[in-house]
């Protein structure tokens, strides 16, 4: 089997954590490889905050993260690089640490060790509200729709810190244009929305703040297959049209890999595979072993 490392490294910009090159099925770490990966990124991606660039693409780096709660380490030595404008699918069984990973990135859980950087800015151990303001939007599992508010109010909350009066109105109109289903329901209580509509709402809500990075936790949970397809399609469009960097945590590995650029598999808190999504999806043995299909 060709080493996926070499294959990856040859592509422009290199897959990050080219350390994945160490071979399949092994966790990796190592400062040297990280540095290499980053250099390749800044050369390749090239569109971070330079001279007021309008692109929102940003690189999210997680390095040697060790995180957990009440003495239980849910993540051990996890390193992932999400290239700008890509979808990174984080997969694995229940309890593998996927949700903890997102919670640590967005600041709800303090890591014991390790770093989280966005375009080189260190965001580790900052408060969630600061991390949000740095441009990371976290859409949690279970949708977190504020059911006591209307659809429009939910959206408005999303844009509060970002925009002044005028900006808010514009952002709202934008959201309604993009998601007509929300426009139709704008003054209804959010509790009246269906599961699929709620998922759209929380994504739209997160987008109100024009984030650079979108963290999505199991968006397909509890949704019918048809709706799942719509949501995945939406995510793909967000990457393609807006250049958003997406970290997609999913148990529905098949759907996730179908749209992702990079696939990361977590097992019991450790990274066991980092591979291009297409390659990962095609590798039957790997899929069966870690992803169950």
């Amino acid at each position, binding site marked *: 089997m060709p080493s996926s490392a070499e294959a990856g490294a040859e592509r422009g910009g290199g897959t990050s954590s080219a350390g994945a090159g160490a071979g399949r099925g092994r966790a990796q770490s190592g400062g040297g490889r990280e540095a290499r990966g980053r250099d390749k990124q800044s050369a390749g991606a090239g569109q971070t905050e330079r001279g007021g660039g309008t692109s929102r693409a940003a690189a999210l780096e997680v390095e040697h993260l060790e995180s957990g709660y009440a003495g239980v380490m849910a993540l051990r030595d996890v390193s992932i690089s999400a290239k700008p404008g890509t979808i990174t699918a984080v997969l694995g069984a229940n309890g593998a640490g996927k949700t903890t990973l997102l919670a640590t990135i967005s600041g709800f859980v303090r890591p014991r060790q390790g770093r989280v950087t966005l375009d080189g800015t260190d965001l580790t151990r900052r408060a969630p509200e600061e991390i*949000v303001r740095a441009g990371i939007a976290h859409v949690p599992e279970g949708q977190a*729709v504020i059911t006591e*508010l209307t659809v429009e*109010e939910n959206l408005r*909350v999303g844009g*509060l*810190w970002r925009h002044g009066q005028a900006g808010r109105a514009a952002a709202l109109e934008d959201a309604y244009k993009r998601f007509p289903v929300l426009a139709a329901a704008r003054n209804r209580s959010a509790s009246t929305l269906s599961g699929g509509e709620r998922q759209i709402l929380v994504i739209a*809500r997160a987008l109100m703040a024009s984030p650079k990075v979108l963290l999505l936790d199991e968006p397909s949970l509890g949704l019918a297959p048809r709706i799942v397809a719509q949501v995945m399609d939406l995510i793909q469009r967000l990457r393609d049209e807006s250049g958003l960097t997406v970290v997609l945590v999913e148990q529905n590995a098949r759907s996730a890999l179908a749209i992702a650029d990079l696939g990361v598999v977590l097992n019991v808190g450790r990274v066991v595979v980092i591979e291009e999504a297409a390659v990962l999806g095609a590798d039957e043995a790997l899929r069966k072993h870690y992803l169950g299909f």
Partner: protein
Amino acid sequence: MTEFLQFTLGGVSFGMVYAAIALSLVLIWRGTRILNYSQGAMAVLTTYIALTVINHTGSYWEGFVVALAAGLVLGAVIERTVIRPVENKPPLNAVVVTIGLLVLIEGIAGIIYGGQYRSFPTAFSVTGLHARSVPLGISRNDVFVASAVLVVALALAALFRFTSVGLRLRASAFNPYAARLLGVRVGRVLTLGWALAGLIGALAGLLVSPDTFLYPSSMDSIFVLGFTAAVIGGLDSPVGAIVGGLILGVVLNYVGGYLGSNLVSIFGLVALMAVLLIRPSGLFSVTHERRV
């Protein structure tokens, strides 16, 4: 018949004071799921401050404004220092802390101002109003009391419904986790909630102290009745707080008028227990209750 009318209208005035206390309790409860047992004591302190200003400057309104401002500050300071550490702990901790605050504030008031009963001026005259020479049982001041609370309640409602600050307050109260994810500084919002509650409580103290006289524990019974009003209306409901206050005020005025003033607090106790047993979530409870 006129007696009944008098008792009814007279009950409105006290009822609005209970409503004000209930409103401040509801505000804090919705935001932090904590019942602030020191609300009455805080009001005592701000009223003492008002009295000092009034005695110094001779102006009621200056004292009034200073008291409201003091209420804002007191509420904010208390939340930031003493309440913040217990917001995510088991409810027993918050109960003990707010009781501790109750006692501490009353003790401080006693130390600074002494325990004697002081009289507190009213904003307007207390002579009874008449409608075509029928005594109504209320005075200009009573009208002021009812209006002041109503105005504050409406202003609060407007704040919540129409402003971004209000949206933040509501989002943080309903779903603090989602709010934080969206960048709302929930901590600051909670402080604001306590500050507003402090302001409303201060108003209640100013309005009721002419009747009860001012001494360190003068708001104790007003507080428990305000709590009762909040429970009647539903701890989650600002509208319920007002309605509950009115109902309680009027009913208790009947009790006091027809049966004697000593029975008022006992009746309040009975009313509270009745509500807690029959319909603990109150008249206007919101259906989606978070953990009680």
